[in-house]
């Protein structure tokens, strides 16, 4: 059997096996995330005051110890023309500012308790009884956006061989490895290959002032997001400085790894069978071949949504879906939690005489899932006192801060 066929069969087997094992439903729940810098309680309304784009350099992503741009076979190669900085121009920044505005309004409409008075600057809905200006926050958004795309060609070395199939598999493996190393070192004959590389950087500064007197409600908040990807050509070469590319991929594109994409697709296939309406509404029925280059608009929107989400988390309590991480505490409470029966789990655990760290954690989780954050925090803290080194408990407490 050829090694390729063997791999295919192994893959199919693992998939079938995995999906059959996956009968137990994946338990998720809504996690409440507390605002990092909440607005004064008197602020109940929000108006979009100004949205603009500007020119200037966008700071590069911070080094978080990802290492420097290496790829298989040696150091990553920087292609010409080299790009070593993100410099925003006014027009793309202006166009992107409108997308950031739309993404921000969507996030506020869905997740925030603030009532929107308008969705575009220089207009307001003054019909009917209107709120006192003291209760209104005015939002200013300033955006810098830099994007580049390269549709070019590069020479890739191919070393072709004639392989005697009568040799042992060890010899064949040695020959293949030798070929790969020789190719990465530039041996073989060069063939021109087309590629598409697209990257972008977005910096958005959000300023919130009180409408009545123009006073700052919190210091201006600046968020940045980046994207880089190449389709076709050599994986190791890039127009962007390799170190910057490595940082961007490690910090902003964790969702794009091949394995994560496959696992996500299994979840999607399950959703297609279990909830076809939701599957359609989320657009998961649409073909999404990862070999087709992403469009500049997709990248722009991705970055716009990221900075909007981070700003919203700063000013407003938000909720997001998270996997339920259960600890091996009381078995009955564990079963109730897995069944999303949070109120019954609370009633049951409150009746348990001596609760351990795991039980306190479960109780906190049940309170959190029902939106009772103060109670949740009390029980997470009790769990931490009983087991201070438990990372799951620490993670839960982190959410409450």
């Amino acid at each position, binding site marked *: 059997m050829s090694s390729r066929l063997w791999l*295919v069969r192994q893959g199919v087997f693992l*998939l079938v096996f995995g999906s059959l094992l996956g009968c137990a439903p994946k338990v998720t729940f809504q996690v409440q995330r507390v605002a990092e810098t909440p607005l004064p309680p008197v602020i109940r309304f929000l108006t979009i005051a100004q949205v603009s784009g500007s020119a200037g350099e966008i700071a590069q992503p911070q080094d978080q110890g990802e290492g420097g741009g290496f790829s298989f076979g040696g150091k990553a190669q920087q292609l010409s023309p080299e790009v070593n900085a993100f410099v925003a121009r006014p027009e793309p920044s202006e166009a992107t500012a409108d997308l950031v505005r*739309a993404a921000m309004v969507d996030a506020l409409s869905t997740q925030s308790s603030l009532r929107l008075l308008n969705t575009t600057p220089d207009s307001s809905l003054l*019909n009917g009884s209107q709120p006192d200006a003291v209760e209104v926050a005015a939002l200013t958004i300033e955006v810098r956006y830099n994007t580049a795309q390269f549709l070019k060609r590069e020479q890739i070395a191919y070393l072709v061989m004639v392989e005697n199939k009568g040799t042992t598999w060890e010899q064949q493996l040695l020959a293949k490895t030798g070929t790969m190393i020789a190719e990465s070192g530039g041996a073989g004959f060069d063939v021109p290959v087309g590629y598409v590389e697209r990257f972008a950087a977005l910096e958005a500064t959000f300023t919130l002032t009180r409408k009545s007197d123009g006073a700052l409600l919190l210091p201006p908040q600046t968020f940045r997001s980046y994207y880089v990807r190449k389709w076709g050509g050599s994986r190791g070469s890039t127009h962007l400085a390799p170190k910057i590319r490595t940082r961007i991929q490690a910090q902003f594109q964790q969702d794009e790894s091949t394995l994560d994409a496959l696992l996500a697709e299994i979840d*999607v296939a*399950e959703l297609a069978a279990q909830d076809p309406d939701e599957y359609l509404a989320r657009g998961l029925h649409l*073909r999404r071949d990862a070999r087709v280059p992403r*469009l500049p608009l997709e990248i722009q929107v991705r970055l716009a949504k990221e900075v909007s989400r981070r700003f919203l988390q700063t000013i407003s309590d938000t909720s997001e879906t998270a996997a339920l991480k259960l600890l091996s505490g009381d078995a009955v409470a564990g079963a109730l939690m897995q*069944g999303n029966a949070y109120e019954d789990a609370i009633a049951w655990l409150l009746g348990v005489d001596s609760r351990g760290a795991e039980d306190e954690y479960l109780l906190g989780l049940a309170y959190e899932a029902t939106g009772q954050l103060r109670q949740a925090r009390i029980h997470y803290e009790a769990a931490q006192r009983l087991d201070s080194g438990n990372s799951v408990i620490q993670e839960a407490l982190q959410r409450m801060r």
Partner: protein
Amino acid sequence: MNSRFVQKIAWISVLLGVVACAPAPLLTMQTPAEIDTSQIQTVAVGRFEVGRVYVVRRAEREGIWEAHEIFFSPEQQDAIARTVRARVVNLLTATPYFRVVFTEEFERLENDAALQELISVQGYTTADVDAVISGKIWLEAERIDGLDLSKEDLEYFNPPRAYRSYGGYREDPGLNLNVQQVVWWPYKSVRGTLGLEIKLTQLTPGRVVASTFATRSYAQRIGGKPASVLDQLTAGLQAGPQLAAGDSGLVLPSLDQLVAELSVSIAARFVKRVSLSERRVPVPLAAGSNATAQLLIEVGAYQLAIEQLQQATANAPDPNDLYNLGVCFEALGDYGLALTSYREAWEKDRENVLFAQGIGRVERIRRELPQLRRQTRSREES
């Protein structure tokens, strides 16, 4: 191995995984709107502005790229916006929740700012319209006709044989070789992205009730070099419903088809957000002692199943039967009795996750019920 075969296997295996878990009849459940729109009953449809439309065709041969941008006049861009708007209206009118009206007054407005300006005129009222829907679209599409390059093994096999030669027979040992060769594989691809902002603006008092900004992308490629095994598995999982529907995936959609597909999906999300909706939820059954009752539930004969199960559980109640009785009550919307049955089952086996799931489902329904009742009542009173 044929790549379409791997794709089908991947999809079928997941489907088997889902189906093989337990028999799960589909129950219809009402879900409240994510945003309370109970005050809004009659909705007018305003204009959908165009943010940007950009369509390009590219061709690549030996790494040399050519681009051909397709120009859209303002009228053509408007026509695309109207197509998107029609899809949103179609879905909205399909729900009995809103009454959708068309008035020239709102359709004539140039953009969202003009709409907001009109509404903001002090004392502005319009007959029988509670809110206006407006939107803005951004569209990009790219078609590529290109070449992939890969190194392929070509098998050269010449079997050993004996042949006659001078002085007798000779042996030819034969050959069994892999000869590698660089192969160019032509491919065509299309990718389209639609960004759509949809807003529901209440007229009096003037406020933005809901605003969504969503993007949908479609990416398809035909031809090209053989995909890796992992890519084949991923593609198989993605293409499952299309394969099941007999779509070969060998034809790229036109721009019109692309826009229609993308806008329907975004509109569905918006409608779910602002309108009460129904969903079909699979509810697993327990392997109870009463097989007839299970069969009745699977075909939707809940009343008959209740009679069977009430008799079966009257004297010696089996927790699995009690749970299945709860499923019947849940299916009929009697959540109080459903919860009682689930709790009775759970009391007999407190570590059973299935029974806890029953309790959890009713808990969720009860949490959503006040909102659901308010939204339903607002429609019944009108």
